């Protein structure tokens, strides 16, 4: 911050001349400003650190993990934490820390894909609805209403239950005809179905948010000015409207990221998400729930991890909301 400068005194004539400096500009923009504000919010910074850690773990988890995620040690079943198994072992003698590291991978992968798909779909459809209005708006808004009238989890379960078999066989066929082996991997198929279902229930919320944003932005003077310059619909949407709605998009994306991880865990907990042997925190909780009196760490470790991560994303989202919203310009 530039301090206001003292007027320079020119002693011999006895007048005061202001020390004029043209163009004192602060080198700042929206994102730098937001970063400044975010940095002052301790909870948000904590959230950011945990989020970054989680993503690093998701990427490098397999290299950090001391054991294979399906490697069983039948001599050590349901052990409490030891020097060898830092978080103990589960009912099949698998290393719990390894399972949690792999579970992070599942959670982040599902959350990333779900967020990317539902955000791009939501932003695109929401912006189109608001900017074009008329029948396009009516159509998109009604679809949003219909999708939002179902309880999210129930809709995701329904999608899971109905499309799983056909998708499975289609992917297997595809895997065989193209020779891409990973397509017929049952864990991959679970991923595809879970993030498909979650994206389907995720985009309407984003679309509604963006629609509201764009509706308020489209009457701004600079949008009129852009139209007066002959900028087409696409240019106005992509270069003027969406960048100006980016703050709420980022916030909603962050909170949605945590939400998607929670949803994945919920689905897996209910037994319709990631199937064994795939590692999912929700699944790990449900598998061990019957044993929590005897081996509480089996529930505690994934449960606490999940809770901490969701809190982290919510704190970060809240912080971003505060940092991006007071747009005083």
């Amino acid at each position, binding site marked *: 911050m530039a301090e206001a400068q003292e007027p320079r005194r020119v002693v011999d004539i006895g007048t005061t001349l202001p020390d004029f400096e*043209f*163009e004192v*500009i*602060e080198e700042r*923009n*929206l994102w730098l400003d937001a970063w400044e504000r975010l940095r002052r919010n301790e909870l948000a910074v904590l959230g950011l650190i945990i989020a970054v850690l989680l993503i690093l773990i998701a990427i490098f988890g397999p290299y950090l993990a001391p054991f294979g995620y399906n490697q069983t040690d039948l001599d050590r079943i349901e052990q409490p934490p030891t020097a060898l198994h830092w978080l103990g072992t589960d009912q099949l003698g698998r290393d719990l820390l390894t399972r949690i590291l792999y579970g992070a991978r599942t959670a982040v992968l599902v959350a990333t894909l779900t967020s990317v798909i539902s955000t791009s779909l939501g932003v695109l459809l929401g912006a189109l609805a608001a900017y074009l209005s008329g029948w396009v708006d009516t159509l998109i808004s009604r679809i949003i209403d219909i999708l939002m009238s179902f309880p999210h989890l129930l809709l995701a379960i329904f999608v899971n239950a109905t499309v799983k078999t056909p998708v499975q066989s289609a992917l297997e066929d595809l895997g065989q005809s193209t020779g891409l082996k990973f397509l017929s991997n049952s864990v991959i198929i679970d991923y595809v179905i879970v993030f498909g279902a979650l994206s389907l229930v995720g985009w309407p919320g984003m679309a509604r948010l963006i629609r509201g944003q764009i509706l308020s932005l489209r009457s*701004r*003077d*600079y949008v*009129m*000015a*852009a*139209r*007066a*310059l*002959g*900028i*087409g619909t696409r*240019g106005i949407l992509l*270069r*003027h409207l969406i*960048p*100006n709605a*980016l703050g709420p998009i980022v916030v909603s994306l962050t909170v949605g990221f945590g939400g998607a991880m929670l949803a994945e865990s919920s689905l897996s907990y209910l037994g319709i998400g990631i199937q064994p042997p795939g590692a999912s925190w929700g699944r790990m909780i449900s598998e061990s729930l019957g044993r929590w009196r005897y081996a509480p760490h089996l529930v505690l470790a994934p449960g606490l991890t999940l809770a901490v991560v969701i809190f982290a994303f919510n704190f970060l989202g809240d912080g971003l909301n505060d940092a991006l919203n007071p*747009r005083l*310009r």
Partner: protein
Amino acid sequence: MADDRLLDVQDLETHLFTREGLLKPVDGVSFFIRPSETMGLVGESGSGKTMTALSLMRLVPSPPARIVGGKVVLDGEDLLALSAREMLQRRSTKVSMIFQDPMTSLDPTMKVGRQVAEPMETHLGLQREEATRRAVELLDRVGVPAPRKRIDDYPHQFSGGMRQRVMIAIALSCSPNLLIADEPTTALDVTVQAQFLDLVQELQKELGMAILWITHDLGVVAELCDKVAVMYAGRIVEFGPLSQVLSQPRHRYTTALLRSIPTMQKRSGKRLEAIHGLPPDLSRVPAGCPFRPRCAFAGPICEEERPALERMGNEHYAACHFPNKEG
């Protein structure tokens, strides 16, 4: 029709279809502008000036507004007959518009240089580098200091006067034949306003575009314009060369308008004259002459018949049943 007309507006009608009924903010407007000419369009708030300008750009807010009739011939082609895509290409390259409030007319999230370059990339097919280079030149030309540095700044780092300079750089970037300026100086303080008017005059001399200057400030008109059109309740009531309209107004409304301007010279101790009453609500425009209820000279015919724009002199038109005598 004379072919030395750059813009020829004939019987332009823009209606508002609202729940309360049909409003006619532009009700049969006709005027013309020659190349490199500056025309002032004056009138009270709500007289339809801005709606006329937006109609020329085909940017009326629709719904509720719709251009229902007339012709806008610019450079030999009727803009109202073009397809939406063709009209898109005419903006910036044939006709540009700058708006009232420079503080809100620039996109806050886009660097200023990009905003100047955008129309050139869109309409002239320039590559980013070339467009940026020209953006620097343009900003330099309109008097933005250190343009090479400033192109990477955001609008909030500019003052109001500088932003209006940026606006005019953007508007002129694709060298339009006509610039529509909708009260571009009302948001500026008077010193900045004077600098801006000087700049516009210089640019016009250099680039030769015609200007349609919308304002309610007759002082600006007197300084800047070659001719004037006076609007009242959606109609042009007087139209003619600047000197004639200001010194020998024929319409009673123009006369009253000019009388209500305070002057430096006459300090007669009299109260400043004002026009009694308010301009008509567009949903209840009286039959006949819309100015009749406020006019001291109205006769019975004014209640019945809407006066047509009639020729009063060389290119001087007025729509009044009882015009001032000449001289």
